[in-house]
């Protein structure tokens, strides 16, 4: 009530809040992350444009890891389950997250999907995000690492045009390198120069799902990450894996 004259008018009160708007998503992501770490499961958020080759890279990864690691995938897709079907055919235990009109996955969608995919015995879980270079970068899912697939056909300046996505990447897979002989104006060195302007610790491999080039380096990177997510290491890091 107005405290100067007792007229009954209401007061306008400013309240300093300083609250992260996506804190609910962050809480759910932390919950997912604890589940993954408890089971020593390496969860990777795979992002990139539509057609960058995310599914093809995962198919090649499954081939390289056959008989060595048990891998699963959640495939985010606007309208179909084509990616999950392809991943299943490649030997991956896969399930779709059909997002309808949503342009990205969030932590609650992943949490819900985990109720429908037996995941506790997996070694690696790939969360294939919706094809999009903008929105998926904003949402933590509980992953141990972000990997962005960038095809050589997308142009050398994509990292500069979409800095948020590449700034959040722990690793970039420069894909479809088998096409380079047909792309005389594209240079991997210039793509890497763009990455160095948006990634403080640029890490990348040039890969081809078709020829297998670079897939060994990518698989070794996964093995190194796997060693870092053991529960004891997680506790030492103060319960934080992804900052």
């Amino acid at each position, binding site marked *: 009530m107005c405290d100067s004259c007792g007229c009954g008018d209401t*007061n306008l009160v400013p309240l*300093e809040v300083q609250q992260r708007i996506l804190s609910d998503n962050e809480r759910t992501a932390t919950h997912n992350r604890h589940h993954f770490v408890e089971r020593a499961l390496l969860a990777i958020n795979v992002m990139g444009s539509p057609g960058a080759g995310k599914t093809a890279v995962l198919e090649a990864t499954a081939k390289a890891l056959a008989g060595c690691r048990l891998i699963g995938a959640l495939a985010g897709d606007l309208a179909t389950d084509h990616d999950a079907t392809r991943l299943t055919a490649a030997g991956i235990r896969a399930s779709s997250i059909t997002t309808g009109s949503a342009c990205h996955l969030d932590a609650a969608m992943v949490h819900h999907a985990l109720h429908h995919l037996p995941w506790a015995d997996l070694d690696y879980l790939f969360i294939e995000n919706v094809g999009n270079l903008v929105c998926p970068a904003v949402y933590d899912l509980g992953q141990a690492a972000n990997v962005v697939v960038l095809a050589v056909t997308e142009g050398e300046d994509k990292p500069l045009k979409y800095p948020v996505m590449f700034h959040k990447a722990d690793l970039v897979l420069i894909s479809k390198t088998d096409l380079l002989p047909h792309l005389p104006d594209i240079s991997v060195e210039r793509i890497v120069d763009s990455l160095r*302007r948006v990634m403080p610790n640029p890490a990348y491999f040039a890969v081809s799902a078709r020829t297998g080039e670079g897939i060994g380096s990518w698989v070794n990177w996964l093995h190194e990450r796997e060693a870092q997510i053991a529960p004891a290491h997680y506790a030492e890091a103060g319960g934080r894996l992804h900052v």
Partner: protein
Amino acid sequence: MHEYSIVQALYDTVVAQAAANRAVSVHGLRVRIGELSGVDPGLLDTAWRTFRERTLCAAAPLEVEMVSARWRCSQCGGEIARGGILTCGSCGGAARLEQGDEILLDRIVMEVP
């Protein structure tokens, strides 16, 4: 366009704060959005104008304060220019983002009885 889902989260936060303070309506909001947050301020405002209709925030404009990206060397603390190579020219350390990725609700102006 993920700005609608950010506005949904913003609205939920504001309504919870309004209820906790027994507010009858909300008269204004201020948010801080980093240049590298992935959020477009224009789209956020458009989403907010649509979303706030017929709610207790109907009369609340959204003030957006943009925060530019600022990089510093993680080793020596020297400033590293935006747009350049994100490695320190002096000591070779990797850059660390000091500000510019925030998506924050800063302030609510509410009407209380």
